[in-house]
């Protein structure tokens, strides 16, 4: 699966930002993973931690939040989240890809198909008690 490609993109962005901000340490990385991506958060985090070894973000805590899908119905102009269906077949809840209002229209995805870094929390020189 493509968790590693995605984690590579994230690792690069985190390191670039940390350098630009002159971080001596990245303490935390906050991720947002869309409900409609086909990414397994545990695997993204595993790869990210792996790829950040020996970097300024090596010890960062990685936290993720799921972003719910947001869709628009082309027929009745519903805009909002999808209904969720507990599927006994797959032992998990899956968003139902049908308009929650009219049950008929085609849906356009507005949100929920991205995996982004929302923020990082860093320490800079000034945060570290000066060593005399």
């Amino acid at each position, binding site marked *: 699966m493509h968790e590693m490609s*995605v984690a590579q993109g994230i690792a690069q962005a985190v390191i670039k930002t940390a350098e630009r901000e002159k971080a001596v340490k990245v303490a935390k990385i906050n991720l947002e993973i869309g409900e409609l991506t086909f990414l397994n958060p545990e695997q993204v985090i595993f790869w990210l931690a792996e790829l950040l070894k020996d970097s300024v973000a090596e010890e960062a805590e990685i936290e993720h939040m799921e972003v719910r899908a947001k869709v628009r119905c082309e027929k009745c102009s519903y805009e909002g989240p999808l209904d969720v269906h507990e599927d006994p077949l797959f032992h998990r809840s899956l968003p139902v890809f049908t308009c929650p209002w009219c049950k008929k229209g085609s849906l356009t995805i507005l949100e929920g198909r991205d*995996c982004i870094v929302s923020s990082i*929390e*860093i320490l800079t020189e000034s945060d570290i008690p000066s060593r005399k």
Partner: protein
Amino acid sequence: MHKIDMRDEESLLAHNRELAEEINKKLKERGIRSIDVMGAIGSGKTTILEKLSERLKGSYRIGALAGDLTTTIDADRIARHGAKTFQISTGKECHLDAHFISHAVDEVADEIDLLFIENVGNLICPADFPLGADQRMVVISVTEGPYMVKKHPYIFAEADVAVINKRDLAEAMEVSVEDLEADIKEISPDTRVVRMCARAGEGIDELIKALGL
């Protein structure tokens, strides 16, 4: 501690979507119609592209990009039917991304006016990586069992055309083609569904019509 907002940084998936839009623009400017063909390994993608090429070679200059992971088998098969083929070796990647296509398109653009892209054989990863084709077509076959649609709803939601292939084997597999079609229609009322037996060429005319070719 300082919190640095990174929302404006471009994510990999967003970057791919932008590139896909550029590719689509580039193809349109050159008057090339393009179709992204997705589906599990063995569902019949290459067979369908062979039949389509055979049938359409008088009307279009056809190009096919085969996203087979490492071999040229698919590209060679399609080439025999008069299409110009371009192998994209994805190596170990589980999906084609827009980068692969972008380079290939530059190479072939002057020689074709209809482009098929055979995506890699899984229904999960390509959903996150659109390629910039005008239309997306998904191929499933009855041999994959009765839950293919229910298990992959989004790929059908985004498909313009869905093919249910190998209907000759439906009875033996005890899989209902009608139920599969109903599952697709429930998720995506606008997706055009075509039932096929690609090996025998059945359903090719309906498919050509559904694709507007």
